[in-house]
Structure formats: C-alpha cells, structure tokens
C-alpha cells in the first residue's frame, strides 16, 4: 500500500510510462519522494523501491550517489553557492560567507526553523555570470556579497511559496552568462528542481 498521495501516485504512473524499463524511473521517482516529504526519507526510498521493483538497499545505493537527493530534512529554501574555479576567481567564496553569515547557517546545515539550508556546490553552468548561486535550483547570476545578504533577508521576510529565477535575478543579480529576453513564469516550490513531469513546478499564473 502506498503512502503517497493520490496525486503523487498518478504522477508516478505517468513517469513510469515514459521509460522502457521500470528501473529507469528510479531517479525521477526519488525526486517525487522528496517533493512529497520535503526530503528523501527511508520510507520514501522504500516506496520508490516498491514502484520499480528493487530492494531498499538498491534504492539507497542510487540515492547516495547523487548530491541532489537530500536525505536530511532540508530548509524550505536551499541556497547553493558555487565556489568552483570561475566563481572563485570573481568572489564566489565571499558570496558563500555572506550567505552563511546573514542566515546564520554554515554550509551543509539547516536553520532550526527549517527555513534555509546553505551549501557550497561545484560549477552550476553559470560561469559567464560568476559568481552565481541557486535557490531551490533557480539561478541567480552576477551576485555580490551585499546582494546575497539582501536575498537571504528577502527570503526570510517575504517567504515566497514559489521562487522564480527571473524575479531573483532582477532583484539580486547582475551580469548573466547570456542574454535572456523572456520572463519565465515557472518557479520552484521546494528544495528540488522544478520540472513539470515531476510535479515540482510552481504556478504559471504569477501576478
């Protein structure tokens, strides 16, 4: 018997139909499990195993391989600061320290309230807009330490249900890797990538 909501189960069936072999659905289903609970629990991994027909140990072996499957409770906002080479050259470390200092959360941790998690990450493919960071994998490029502090304060005050990359870029970003003329009306609802088939994408009817 599934512990997942009917909506999530429906989503899981749709995802499984996209692959010729069941096991290939493990990765998207792990995201679903995260979206259901906010992080990847043991129960979530067992459930995924039942769907694709592998043991919990096999699921765990996969989940532990990838950094985006968070097995510890993660904040409503996951702030990932890039400190790889191109960002490091342009002050990525200072941005990370500003985020840690303003939020009071050292990298790899979450605040007691469960609002913010901070991590430093390797290159997120935004090196032309270095230093860059992501909030729930929505990208902000050309950040400064001061702007990063503002971003942290804004998250704490506004507490948006959905975070939009374009909006954060406008408020807190600077130089971008390349021009992007259009506003995108999709955003992230939690610390997992916002993608339609995973049902983790925010409303398209943004005011």
């Amino acid at each position: 018997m599934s512990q997942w909501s009917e909506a999530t189960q429906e989503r899981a069936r749709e995802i499984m139909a996209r692959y010729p072999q069941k096991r290939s659905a493990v990765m998207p289903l792990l995201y679903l499990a995260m979206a259901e609970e906010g992080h990847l629990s043991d129960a979530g991994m067992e459930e995924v195993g039942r769907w694709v027909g592998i043991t919990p140990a096999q699921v765990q072996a996969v989940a532990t391989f990838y950094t985006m499957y968070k097995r510890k409770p993660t904040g409503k906002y996951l702030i990932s600061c890039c400190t790889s080479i191109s960002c490091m050259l342009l002050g990525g470390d200072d941005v990370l320290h500003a985020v840690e200092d303003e939020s009071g959360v050292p990298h790899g941790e979450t605040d007691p309230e469960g609002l913010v998690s901070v991590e430093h990450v390797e290159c997120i493919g935004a090196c032309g807009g270095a230093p860059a960071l992501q909030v729930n994998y929505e990208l902000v490029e050309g950040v400064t330490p001061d702007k990063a502090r503002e971003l942290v304060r804004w998250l704490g005050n506004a507490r948006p249900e959905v975070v939009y990359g374009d909006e954060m870029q406008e408020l807190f970003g600077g130089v971008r890797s390349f021009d992007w003329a259009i506003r995108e009306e999709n955003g992230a609802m939690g610390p997992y990538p916002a993608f339609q088939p995973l049902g983790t994408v925010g409303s398209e009817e943004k005011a």
Partner: protein
Amino acid sequence: MTTPLVVTKRMSEFPADSHTIDRYEATGGYEQARRALGMTRDQLVEEIKASGLLGRGGAAFPAGMKWSFLAPARPSFLVVNGDESEPGTFKDRQLLERDPHQMLEGVIITAIANEVHHAFVYIRGEYPKPARRVQAAVDEARARGYLGRGIFGSDYDLELTVHLGAGAYICGEETALINSLEGLRGEPRLKPPYFPAAKGLYMQPTIVNNVETMSNLPHILAMGSEEFTRIGHPDDTGTFLISVSGHVNRPGNYELPHGITWRHLIYEIAGGIPGDRELKAIIPGGASAPWFVPEIHLDDQITKDVCAEAGSMLGSGAVIVMDETTCMVRAAERIVRFFAHESCGQCTPCREGTTWMEMILRRIEEGQGRPIDLDLLLDVSDNISVGLNWPPKMTTICPLGPSAVSPILALRDYFRDEVQAHVELGGCPLELEKAAV
C-alpha cells in the same frame, strides 16, 4: 574574417521567441527532419561524415563515424548528453534554453539515421529551467505530430523522454550516463566491452551525442556537407561555441570558427582583462585541460591540433582566464577539489589520489606546506596518470582521474617558484603582499 553564425543565429536574430515552435518553423525549422525521413541510413551517415562534424562534448570524436559504428542489433537508442558540468562550461545551457527545437530536430535526424524509436535527453539536475524549455518544446512538437506515433505523417514512431540528472559530474561520461539512465549509480563502465554503439542503454546499440553536436545537424542537412566544411578550419569544420569566463571584461558564449588566436579571443572578443591587469594563465578546454601561459601560448591558433601539440585540449570549449592577481595554488586546489568531489570511487588511483592532492594543495595554500610537497604532488599525480603527459596514459576506467592532474602539470611547468614561495613564506605570497600594503 566573418564567419556566419550557425547554432546561435536564430537566437541572435529573434531573441524574444527563438525558443518557440512558431519561430522555429518560420525560420525553416523541421524541414530537414522531414527530408531525413526520405533518406536512407547510409545517405545520412555519409552526409554527416562528409561534413567533418566533430562531437562537441569534449572528446571531439567524428559524429558520422560514431554513427557508422552502431551495431546491427535492434532496438537502438539515442541519448543526448546535456549533463554539462565541466567547470567553465555553459554553452549547452544556452542552446537548451534558447533554441530547444534546433536540438530536437537534430535528435529526430539522428534517430532516423540510427533507426532509433526512443530517444532520451539527459539534462543535469541543476538545469531545471533548460529542462522545462526542452519539455515545453517536446510538448509543442508532439502536438504538431513531429514526435510520437507516425512523425510528420510517416509511419516512423519516435518517443522522447527528458530525463533529469541529480548532481553528479561523472554522469557526463557516456557510459556513466547510460548507467544513470538505467537507474543505477552513475559509474562509468569499462570500454571495451561497453562501447555504447555496441552495448549501451539496456545493453543495446546506443548513440550518445552532445547537445551542441545535435544542434548542428539540421544546418548540415540544410546547407549540405560541402558548404559546412567551408566554414571554420579545414581540420575542424563548422563553428564551435566557446564559453569564456574568469577575468575578462565580456564573459559569455561566443560562436566562432576554429583558428583564431588566444590573444584575439581574450583581448578582442572577450574585451580584455578588467583594469588592464596582466594575463597569468588560460585554461583552454574546461577544468580537465592542462593550462596555457601567455608567454608561450598567447599567439597560438585555437584548433584541436595546435592545442594537442601544445599538450592540452579544447575539450568542452570552456576558456577560463586568470589574471596576475590569481594565486595558482588556490586555482589548482579548486580544480583538484572538484575532481576529488566528483570521483565516482571505482578506481583507487582516482579516488585516493585526488583526495590526497586536494589535501596537499590546501596545506600549501594555507602556509603549512613542506619543501617536499611539490614532489609529493607529482608523485601522487604520477600514480593517477603514469608519466604525467597529455593525453594521459590510462590507469583508470575513465579519464576523470587523469584530468585531475592537469593543474599539477601547470604548477610543475610554469609556477614552481610560486609554489615554493608559499612554502618558504608560510602562506600565499599574493595574500601576504596585500596584507603588507
């Protein structure tokens, strides 16, 4: 020298809607996919072979030749590599976000040429926006009957699944990508026997090609392979996307022909170095590539062969520019840290070696280095990449381990004094200088 834009043409001319199917079709889109349906596998493979198109994922393998190696067993599969995670690289993201239909048309052409009825686009997990763009394009194409059952009114079926990674650079390696897509840990497989074209996804013949490679295909069919070979450099046809980052005034992706010089790229195209500071080092092809220095390489041409002769590679086309304010030990540490973090752990030299190297570099950077540390670094490096040459002798299942040695080669060849100064002064000379001012 004016070279026409190929893969970034539409997005530069129509910045507001280059990603939509209407704009795509209004600019000749999907005509080549229709045409491909009327061509045989041999005709398509020959056309791409004749174009000289090299894979744009880093290994520069001829695309047409790869297709010709596809084993006869069926079903065959196609996996597009959109895992783009090599530090410094952000070109595929631009192609995915801004012209997803161009890539999809490439997918349809490749599928037809390789008798594929189910293709996958694997996009790194940290790229949800590109993935949303591609999914939206897939939905648009499906609605018009260009994907799914009987594409373009023919009897050819083509399914397409967009798959999201979950944070592992190694999944960009094609056999790791396949494992990941099978729902396994993203660990590279041994080649031989697991060449994707023979035993790939679900042990079936599989083509793995990069996003930029795919994006070139509609243009090759449209202009003809002969015309395509006239763009760029005779050894390296067509254009290629270079991602420039680091200490330059105008970072970004530039679509260029091979054959310009590093000087031209950095000082003209990318606008030079902020504050007119001195150039110190160039990483020519992503974090995996051995570094260049201006004294020796600045006027070298940017081609695959010139780069190889100079002991490096163009790799994924990521150029990272470092000026005189950059500590080379720190830069090396950052790159080695990346490989230590991303090692899948299957091979001892890679798993243990990268971790050791990171530790030693950090200790030198922090002023705790010992006089023997550079030799120790070279010794550890030699265990991962025997003989310390480029291209490396392989002691590991995949090239990730040996790539981690690239910055160490630079320290050995060009920045030995800087390393020694760290040890003698008990810290970074650049930092100490700054503190003294």
